[in-house]
């Protein structure tokens, strides 16, 4: 089981996101997934798979409706890890 802190989760997310063409360089906790990184729905699916596999959690699609930044995504992951524990 992963025991990453939220900051560590953010770092891990940077690692996942760097695979996408527009995500190089300027990643920060407040980077907006859609507006700043231009993630389309296919990219998003790839990202969600990485997160699910890495943390062994299930990410419901409806959850993404209220997430805009990397920090918010990390907070949601933290919560899902805690729920699972």
């Amino acid at each position, binding site marked *: 089981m992963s025991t990453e802190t939220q900051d560590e989760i953010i770092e891990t997310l940077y690692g996942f996101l760097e695979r996408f063409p527009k995500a190089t360089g300027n990643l920060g906790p407040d980077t*907006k997934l859609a*507006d700043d990184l*231009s993630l389309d729905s*296919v990219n*998003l*699916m790839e990202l969600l798979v990485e997160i699910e596999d890495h943390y062994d959690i299930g990410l419901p*699609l*409806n959850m*993404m409706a209220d997430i805009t930044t990397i920090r918010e995504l990390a907070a949601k992951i933290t919560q899902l890890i805690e729920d699972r524990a």
Partner: protein
Amino acid sequence: MQATGSSHDLALRKADFSTLCEALDYAALGTTGVNFYNAKGEIYASSTYTELRNEAMELARRLMGLGIERGGRVALVAETSPHFVRFFWACQYAGLVPVPLPATIQIGGHAAYVTQLAQLIRNCGASAAMATAEWADFLAEAVADMDLACAGTPETFDALAPVAGDLPGVTPESTAYIQYTSGSTRFPRGVVIDQKTVLANIRDMSANGLKLHEGDRFSSWLPFYHDMGLVAFIIMPMATQRSVDFLGTHDFAMRPRKWLEMMSANRATITSAPPFAYELAVMRIRPRDAEGLDLSALRVACVGAEMITPEPLERFAEVLAPAGFRKTAFLPCYGMAECSLGISFLGLDEEVRIDHIDSEDMQHDGIARPLDPAEAEGTERRVARYVDCGALLPTFDIEIRDENGRPLPERHAGVIHLRGPSVMSGYFQDPEMTREALSADGWLNTGDIGYLAGGRLFLTGRKKDMIIIHGRNIWPQDLEHLAKSQPGVSYNDVAAFSVPSGDGRHEEAVIVVQCRERDEIKRARLVKTIIGMVRSEFGIDCRVELVPTRTLPRTSSGKLARARARLDHMARQQAAASVPVQPATAQPETVDEAPIRYIA
């Protein structure tokens, strides 16, 4: 849990029923049914048609207690779940009309989705609305200020008191469902399909398109709010007493291999997907994954819902050949919600066939003159390739017409017009739109462009102006509406359309905006805002081109000439790409007067 079997003793009847209730009454005499698989590829729900019928009739009695008039609409957020299927059939027994609504959401798209739900629920005048737990909060927000007889989760409905007495049921003329043809929020078009209409189409498809036989088994991840997902995988298997396996759309999109595994494990014989899905599947599987799969039973892999390009299919066939996949299983087809579903299918066991024609002749005269690629090589003539979408199902009449409505001969491209028993009765409560699409003598103007050759249909252009990305229909009006909502962008300043992407294999959306702003920072911000709005509402990337005022072409009556705007845009792109780069000093001094363009 065990999936329902593929074969049983019940004699195969190919949808020769007068209503969907009658069809389910018959299917309930057998042992086949519906099965649901989760993200891990495990079965989590399974019902025989016998069980499904009982559950649907019980729920129908509870729905009757709501006092909704016959033919009243019940909106169903169409997540891939056993509840949706149960509610869909319950509505039939209760004499109500189910209306599947999209269950899809973008990053940060909460508000946009709620608005969309509310708009569709209002448009169909629903008396009740259901969403499963995952979607219930969005539904509650959408209906907050509506006065519905009941809105909530399946549990809410299951807690209603059942009413005794006969179920009202339906007649062949009753509406079977209303299908929204796109996720359009501002301009929803609800296709009204009657019982006899959808059954006529399924009869035709199952007897002539797919030639169903005992032992066929369906498999799908297509969304239930999509015409192909609903008609080909919920209604058709039931009306032909076949078992069907479902994987959630989201689960497929994340792990396409689960679709292949599900088909392999249950020896599915029939599936369907847009071309992009076959491509996605190949992108996400490793070659050695194929070895563990057995797709040798799969005899039909329909390909439809967007323009078909052969390359992704060839790759899929290659990678999955070790799993026993045969490329003759690919079945290009043509269909649309307005015709219930299927219109033409390639012959079974035929290989995907390409018509090579002279591109110039097609562009200038709309004539599909065959041109051998070998012959064209080294000359100035270019070859255009179109996929054979097969022969029309026998119940359809077809005419290819020119812009004045006159029928065209073979190998002349024009607007596809269709007539037959599978055609819709109209768009829900929209007589004007219905009149535009449907003539008094029953001809449907599909808006799609194509030609006939040797009795085969070839599509050369899609529904007028429609943007199709990843198999999803997006109305240009919706994209334009988003751009027009920006300050400084007025009603007449916007045109949206799609163009082939750089590699020529995909389509991408383009929004051209007439912009008076000269400040580069503000211009860049406008572009970024529009791109962000499109992404949060539709989940697609688009390009925004800012152009000077009076760039967009109009028709004589002042309407936006979208097709011409598209050609103009492509010409500008081409010109920009071919202009040699000038040294900075050679720039004209009057640079301020030159049209400023910004492409994101």
